């Protein structure tokens, strides 16, 4: 089911962005500056009509970003109409960003703060139960990845 109406999601994302920015502190990390380009690539369709998120190189690059991907996603999605068909690619970006927590270069980006907020906001965009389930699975995946990393690296 395609949806093309503008959603209060945008407004809530903007608010979320400020929350995320405040919680991340005043400095702009390497991950945040890199994330915008990588997420842009992930959410852009190639000549095959497929989102870049399905490109393994994009996935590999995302895996270094962690929470910074969701900050960049939030900025990107604020000005976009979110359709159900777009959500799998968004979830793939989120999932790939927590695919390998040990690969996340900026330690401050390992904790999924903005990511979980983004997923909660995303769940308000759709009523499709299958997509809602996918959002829930992605949130659980991100939490479990971070929890597993934290268990194995208690000092980090």
């Amino acid at each position, binding site marked *: 089911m395609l949806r093309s109406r503008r959603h209060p999601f945008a407004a809530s994302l903007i608010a979320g962005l400020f929350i995320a920015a405040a919680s991340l502190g005043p400095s702009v990390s390497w991950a945040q*500056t*890199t994330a915008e*380009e*990588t997420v842009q*690539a992930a959410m852009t369709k*190639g*000549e*095959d*009509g*497929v989102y*870049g998120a*399905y*490109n*393994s*190189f*994009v996935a*590999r*690059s995302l*895996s*270094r970003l962690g929470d910074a991907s969701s900050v960049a996603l939030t900025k990107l999605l604020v000005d976009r109409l979110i359709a159900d068909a777009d959500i*799998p690619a968004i979830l*793939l970006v989120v*999932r790939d960003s927590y*695919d*390998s927590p*040990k*690969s996340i270069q900026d330690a401050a980006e390992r904790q999924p703060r903005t990511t979980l907020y983004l997923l909660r906001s995303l769940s308000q965009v759709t009523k499709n139960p299958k997509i809602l389930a996918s959002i829930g*699975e992605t949130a659980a*995946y991100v939490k479990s990845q971070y929890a597993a990393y934290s268990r194995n690296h208690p000092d980090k």
Partner: protein
Amino acid sequence: MMSLVRSQVPDPSGALIPSNIATGSAILSGKGGETDTISVALASSVYNVRNATCGGVCSTCNGATEFGFNPAAYDMAVLAWLQGDAQVTWNTGTGYINPSGITFSSGNTSIVTINSGGGMQGQAPGTTSVSFSMDDSPIYELDCSNYPYCPFANIGGGAPTTVGQIPTSLKLVTAPPTILQQGNNNATNGCPLGNYGIEIDIDYQVLDQNGAPIASANMEPQENIPGVTTGYQDIGPSRISGTSTFTRADGTFDDAPVGKCPPVPVTTLTPFATQSIQILLNGTAYPVRTNSYSYSTTNLPNHGTVTNGKDINASQ
């Protein structure tokens, strides 16, 4: 001399002869050191050069006091050239680079050779030293009475020289690359379940400039994907077991996964990425390979082709 002392004007180095000095010795020389020809006008004086400036019975008043080889220690590649210099400093402070009478030598010519002008060339991996001797220049001695004649230098200088391999290319170890099994819902080992396309696990060996494998665990493979990465970033680690930031001890590494797994069939061979790989070794980046990847899928999930149009062609 008395006028010079009374003037109390320091020299360019700030040195000043105290005004109460009545006797002493001095060495007069031009800006270029002891090799300059200068004129000295004496209104009235008694002087004895040897007694004033030389010690003992030595007739040599100036000579070398310091010896060095530049660069002090270095790494170089096989077949690379590097200029080495013998540096000799006299007691007057004048420095000489490769003065006459210098002879260069290598501690092991199978590792590095050095010619009569100090030009070095790496021959094979290893560590040795290069040195020089100086036969016909006097060394500076205040008291030469122990020598039957004025002493001449016969010294060796040296520098540890390490000749190494430099990463130059990548050899595809797995040909064709290993095709990953169909992934699961977590996409932990390949394409997400139900997606079309293919991902492959590429294994590379780093080769040196002579095509020989470099067996080192200190090499850091990095990639740059225009439009995706902001410059070069590490290839590993990734979720795939076996990938890490550095090469294995044998100089191999995994580049995995490489591919594309779209949620819809794409049956036409379509470009999806250009990947430039460099190897970071001891702080220096060496470009080793560029791949321009294309892919296509079949109408079956997790089936398709990935190719770089050269040595990587994987299909299932």
